[in-house]
């Protein structure tokens, strides 16, 4: 079974960034970082959010030296384990879509329960398909023009069949 991904439809996107806001809100939980995992990109003609493609042979997961990005066949995605991220930016360089970025935050250094200082912690920011969210990806739910769809293998097969049908109809 292949990976799932959120597909953006540039003909429907109005560039309102509601998906980014929904993404921030969905990840605004302790132990995570409130930053968008997808980014609305505009040219003069079109706009569309760019999110992780969850590549089957993901270059980001291959480049990661610490397993912060990993192949997660159980959830049909490229998984993210922020705790392991050291912020080396190898994934950022490897991704051909510009869908991965790295952010930093200050975390407390504890000695027992006493805070003795703070240190810089890096977080890899990449779509995690909101696997812990019951309603599925927050961005797809929030999009006012229904421009974002979670595409799985089944949907992809339907799409392929539909296009094949369109092809023979055009040829006839």
């Amino acid at each position, binding site marked *: 079974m292949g990976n799932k991904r959120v597909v953006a439809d540039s003909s429907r996107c109005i560039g309102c960034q509601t998906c980014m806001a929904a993404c921030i809100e969905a990840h605004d939980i302790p132990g995570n970082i409130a930053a968008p995992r997808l980014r609305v*990109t505009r040219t003069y003609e079109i706009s569309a959010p760019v999110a992780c493609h969850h590549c089957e042979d993901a270059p980001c997961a291959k480049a990661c030296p610490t397993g912060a990005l990993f192949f997660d066949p159980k959830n049909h995605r490229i998984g993210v384990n922020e705790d392991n991220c*050291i*912020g080396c930016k190898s994934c950022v360089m490897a991704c051909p879509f510009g869908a991965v970025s790295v952010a930093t935050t200050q975390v407390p250094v504890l000695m027992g329960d006493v805070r003795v200082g703070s240190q810089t912690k890096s977080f890899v920011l990449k779509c995690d398909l909101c696997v812990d969210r019951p309603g599925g990806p927050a961005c797809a739910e929030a999009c006012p023009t229904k421009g974002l769809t979670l595409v799985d293998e089944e949907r992809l097969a339907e799409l392929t069949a539909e296009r094949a049908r369109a092809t023979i109809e055009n040829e006839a």
Partner: protein
Amino acid sequence: MNRFIDINPERCIGCGTCQSACADAHRMQGLQDTPRLALVKTGGISAALACHHCEGAPCAEVCPVNAIEHDGDRIHVKEQECIGCRLCAIACPFGAIHPDGTSIAGVAGMCDPTPSYPKSLSSLLTWAPGQYTCAVKCDLCAFDPEGPHCVAACPTKALTVMGGAADRELDEAKRLRSIENGPSVDVTAVAQGLSEKAEGSVNNG
């Protein structure tokens, strides 16, 4: 975001000019004169490897004397404070930091003019009598406002300084390319049409 040196292996010809420039630049500053880039060659490819200046640098985290610090947009080793414990070299997943030391061979009254101990296979196991060991890694030539000497020296322009504005530009270019090459078919409409059809067939049935 920290800056770092990015290598394009397709351009690298494995000439070692970056290493020479690195060693020379640091020697002139009175720092360890060993090259801070590792030139890695396999049967098919060659590339120089340098510090990634990780945002949450594991080398800085394990350093027991805080000789490795976050300094603006880079990770900096204070060579004078390093105690040579080699923990950073063990923690780094890239092999971009290594212990090195200045040989005192030939210093008057100190040692034989030529070292008589065998050279170790691993720099982690190197030890020489009287030699002060310290950690050495890319410092982005922060002492020179003109930037890293390896980048300027590379004859094939295989090295570039990434991070900061350059990185954001590259990411934006990648994103623009991916929306311009995005699906030309209305995926959502097709999907909705299919589900409406499915609902219709259920209702009709």
